[in-house]
C-alpha cells in the first residue's frame, strides 16, 4: 500500500481522486460503458422482438415489402459502417501507442464515414417518401399509399401488413440513425480534445468507451441489414 501512496503524489493530472490509479480508473470506465450497452441491447431487443413476431405472422407481406428496399445502398452502407468501425479501432490503437497524428486522422475518417452512412440513409428515406412508403400519416399530405402493382402484391397479401413492415423499418433504422448522430457528436468531442492533446497512452479512456459505443451501433446494423433488406430476396426480389 505504501507504494501506491507514493504514486499518488506524482499522479497523472487526469486521475480522479477517488481512484487508486489510472489502471483502476480505466477499468471502471470501461465497465460502466458496458453496463450502459446492456441497457441499449435490451432497448433494441424490444424492437427486434416486434420484428420477429410480425414477420412470423405476415411472412409474405414482409418479403414483398423488404424487396422494395434498395439492396445496393443497404450493402454499401454496411461496408461503410464496418470500415468506420475499423477506423475507430485504429483510433483507439493509435492513442494507445501514442501516435497522435494517426489518432487524429483515424477519428476524422470515422466521422466522415459516419456522416457518409447518414447521407446514404437520407437518400433511401427520400426514395421511400417519393414512393409514398412513409407509414401512416407521419408526413402531412403524403400518407402511406404505394402503387399496388409496383409492390407486386400477391392475392391474399395485405397492404396493411406491408405498412406494418415499414413501421418497423422506420422505427429501427430511425433509432439506429439517431444513435449514429449521437455517435458523430461524441466523435467530434473526441476530435476536439485529441487536437488539444488531452489523450495519451496513459490516459485514453474516453476514446476507448466512445469506441465501444460506436462498435455497438455497428453491431445493431450488422443484424438490421439481413433482417430488413435480405429477407425476401430468394423469393424473386430484384
Amino acid at each position, binding site marked *: 500500500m505504501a507504494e501506491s501512496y507514493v504514486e499518488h503524489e506524482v499522479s497523472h493530472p487526469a486521475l480522479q481522486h477517488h481512484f487508486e490509479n489510472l*489502471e483502476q480508473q480505466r477499468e471502471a470506465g*470501461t465497465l460502466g460503458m458496458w453496463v450502459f450497452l*446492456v441497457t441499449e441491447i435490451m432497448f433494441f431487443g424490444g424492437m427486434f422482438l416486434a420484428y420477429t413476431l410480425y414477420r*412470423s405472422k405476415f411472412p409474405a407481406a414482409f418479403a414483398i415489402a423488404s424487396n422494395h428496399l434498395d439492396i445496393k445502398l443497404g*450493402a454499401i452502407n454496411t461496408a461503410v459502417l464496418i470500415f468506420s*468501425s475499423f477506423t475507430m*479501432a485504429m483510433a483507439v*490503437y493509435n492513442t494507445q501507442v501514442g501516435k497522435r497524428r494517426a489518432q487524429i486522422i483515424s477519428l476524422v475518417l470515422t466521422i466522415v464515414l459516419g456522416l457518409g452512412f447518414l447521407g446514404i440513409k437520407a437518400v433511401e428515406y427520400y426514395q421511400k417518401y417519393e414512393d409514398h412508403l412513409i407509414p401512416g400519416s407521419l408526413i402531412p399530405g403524403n400518407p402511406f399509399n404505394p402503387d399496388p402493382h409496383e409492390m407486386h402484391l400477391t392475392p391474399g397479401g395485405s397492404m396493411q401488413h406491408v405498412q406494418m413492415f415499414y413501421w418497423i423499418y422506420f422505427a429501427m433504422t430511425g433509432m439506429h440513425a439517431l444513435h449514429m448522430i449521437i455517435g458523430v457528436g461524441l466523435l467530434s468531442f473526441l476530435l476536439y480534445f485529441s487536437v488539444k492533446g488531452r489523450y495519451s497512452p496513459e490516459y485514453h479512456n474516453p476514446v476507448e468507451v466512445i469506441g465501444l459505443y460506436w462498435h455497438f451501433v455497428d453491431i445493431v446494423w*450488422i443484424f438490421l441489414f439481413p433482417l430488413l433488406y435480405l429477407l425476401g430476396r430468394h*423469393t424473386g426480389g430484384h
Partner: protein
Amino acid sequence: MSEHIVPVKVYISIFLALMVGTAVTVLAAFQNFPGALNVIVAMTIAVVKATLVVLYFMHVRYSARLIWVIVASALFWMGILFALTFSDYWTRCWLGCT
C-alpha cells in the same frame, strides 16, 4: 492487469473477415434454400460478424472476467425476452382459436 494492445494485423484481419461476411450474406440471400434455411444462414453469418466485433474491436477477448459476465447477462436477458414472449404466441391456439 495491464492493458492489452491489439496488434494492427488483427484489426485488419477482422475488418476483411467482416467485409467477406457481408458479401457472403448478400450472395446467400439470393439462393433459394429449402425451408427456413435462408434465415438460418443469414442469422448465423450476422452472429459470427457480431462476435468478431465484440471479441476483437471491443477487446472483450482481452478484458476482465467481469466484462464477460456483463456481456453474458445481456444475452441471457435477451433470451428471456424472446423465450417468454414466444412461449405465449406459439401456444395461444393450443386450446382452440375462435
